[in-house]
């Protein structure tokens, strides 16, 4: 409760949380908010500039850009949650076990593999994995999740290393509490703050990564509206309909800003050492 009150006093973090909340509401109520079907083509209304009927204008197939941006929120929120969820599912258990048991596996297999994975430029790795597995939203999420996982291994392991020698852990060990219980009941809850901060900031990167892959044509496939694929489509319209490029980009910017502000706010509240 005290932490929550501290967070409420953090102005920028609160703005971030409000932006994310708006995104979630828009994603859930997209059918009620969007005035048109996002995939409905109307050839009598192609390339209309923003106006009373079509607030953000229409694209070259006569589709309402506002409705597509609203539905795009669904893809973005899914991209943030699924990619980071996959990264956490891979990274957190490995980091926990590696940091707790240490030794050869930790030092030479896990950490060196993390070093090796982090040697691949993230987007190139995601691009290569998507290329191999095939384009599409699911594979893009898998590619981004795998790309993010080394960061979660590193941060979780770092936390475990600082917690494993604490008195309360040694006490638990001395009274015969099993390793699995120590790891998941005593270490993990105390290691969660930095993991949650990392998760929030990774969600911002996840949205940009999904948009980037969709922009390149390897993520969400047409006609499903995603902000990245909308930008891909709008690129050929830059000289005749610049507004088609403007709105999906602003949407990505606002949501990523929201996650960055929220992550920063959480960091200031949950990890006071970082406060400057």
């Amino acid at each position: 409760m005290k932490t929550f009150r501290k967070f409420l006093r953090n102005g920028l973090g609160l703005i971030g949380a409000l932006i994310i909340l708006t995104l979630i509401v828009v994603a859930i109520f997209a059918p009620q908010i969007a005035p048109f079907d996002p995939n409905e083509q109307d050839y009598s209304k192609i390339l209309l500039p923003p106006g009373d009927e079509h607030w953000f204008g229409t694209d070259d197939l006569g589709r309402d850009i506002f409705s597509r941006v609203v539905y795009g929120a669904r893809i973005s929120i899914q991209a943030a949650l699924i990619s980071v969820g996959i990264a956490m599912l891979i990274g957190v258990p490995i980091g926990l076990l590696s940091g707790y048991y240490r030794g050869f596996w930790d030092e030479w297999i896990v950490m060196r593999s993390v070093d090796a994975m982090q040697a691949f430029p993230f987007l190139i790795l995601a691009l290569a994995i998507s290329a191999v597995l095939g384009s599409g939203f699911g594979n893009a999420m898998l590619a981004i999740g795998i790309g993010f996982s080394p960061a979660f291994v590193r941060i979780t392991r770092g936390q475990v290393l600082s917690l494993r020698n604490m008195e309360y852990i040694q006490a638990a060990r001395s009274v015969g509490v099993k390793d699995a219980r120590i790891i998941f009941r005593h270490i993990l809850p105390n290691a969660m703050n930095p993991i949650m901060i990392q998760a929030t900031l990774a969600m911002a990167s996840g949205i940009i990564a999904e948009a980037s892959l969709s922009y390149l044509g390897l993520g969400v496939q047409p006609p499903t509206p995603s902000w990245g694929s909308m930008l891909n489509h709008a690129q050929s319209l830059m000289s005749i309909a610049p507004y088609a490029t403007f709105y999906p980009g602003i949407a990505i910017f606002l949501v990523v800003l929201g996650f960055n502000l929220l992550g920063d706010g959480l960091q200031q509240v949950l990890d006071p050492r970082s406060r400057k």
Partner: protein
Amino acid sequence: MMFILRRLLLTIPILLLVSILTFSLIHMIPGDPARVILGQEATPEAYQALRTELGLDKPIVEQYFSWLGKVVTGDLGMSITDRVPVIDLIIQRLPATVELTIGTFLVAILIAFPAGILAAVRRGTWVDYTSTFAALGGMSIPSFWLAMMMIIFFAVENQWLPSSGYVPFSENPAQNLMAMILPCVATGLRESAVLMRMLRSSLLDVVNMDFIRTAKAKGLNEARTILGHALRNAMVPVITTSGLMIAGLLGGLVITESIFSIPGFGRLIVESVFKRDYVTVQGAILVSAILVVLVNLVVDILYAVIDPRIKSGKGAGE
């Protein structure tokens, strides 16, 4: 010297793991890689020839060592679609990417250093808040969208700069520089935001230290204190960020090069992905990872030059 040697030795297992991960790429293809690359209509002869060329008819361990043996001699295989050595394709494409990386890095430094120093020195004032908020905003802008907005404003609406294309510097320096302004600024703005935040935070750690107080007490003015003493001590985390940035840039340039039609290394990867030229994709991602490992090695050696405590194993914070 011992420090550099130790650091070089640590690089070997990482490079070996990088090679294993890269090698595994073709084997991650669901089904038979040769069938996926050639499609269902391929003749049995073509299918068998590709299997032999890729070494898929041998046991996997033998395949790896045979591939690794070729890689260490610079043979990354033959492009499936272009029928030229992959290494030649990469060498052909690297100059544009190197130029773009240097330009982007320069833009990032030119913005981040003055803004970061000002924000740290004027901590808690409107200068600090404005630059910190601008940095957060900058970090949130997708660089490919910013690139498109800049093309609309500077190339489509006003025709001040070219919207795309690349002319090698050796052919026409003026045209080359004109063509590189938009891509470098579009990518560099975001990077400057990351660098600025790190510089501000690192400087704030240093300006409260005793030696800075002593320098001020001895009458040194603020500019000399910051530029002559604090900045050097704040550089270690900034150099780390710069090293990571170059790794991130190699990835980010994939998109920048696609938007501005720059025939660079990133665009080679995208083109190869769409042509299902997995041998080129494999070679290119291996080269990108090796470049990142080498940049990290240089960064670590630079640490030791800037902060001799690292060389003696005591660490910067001790």
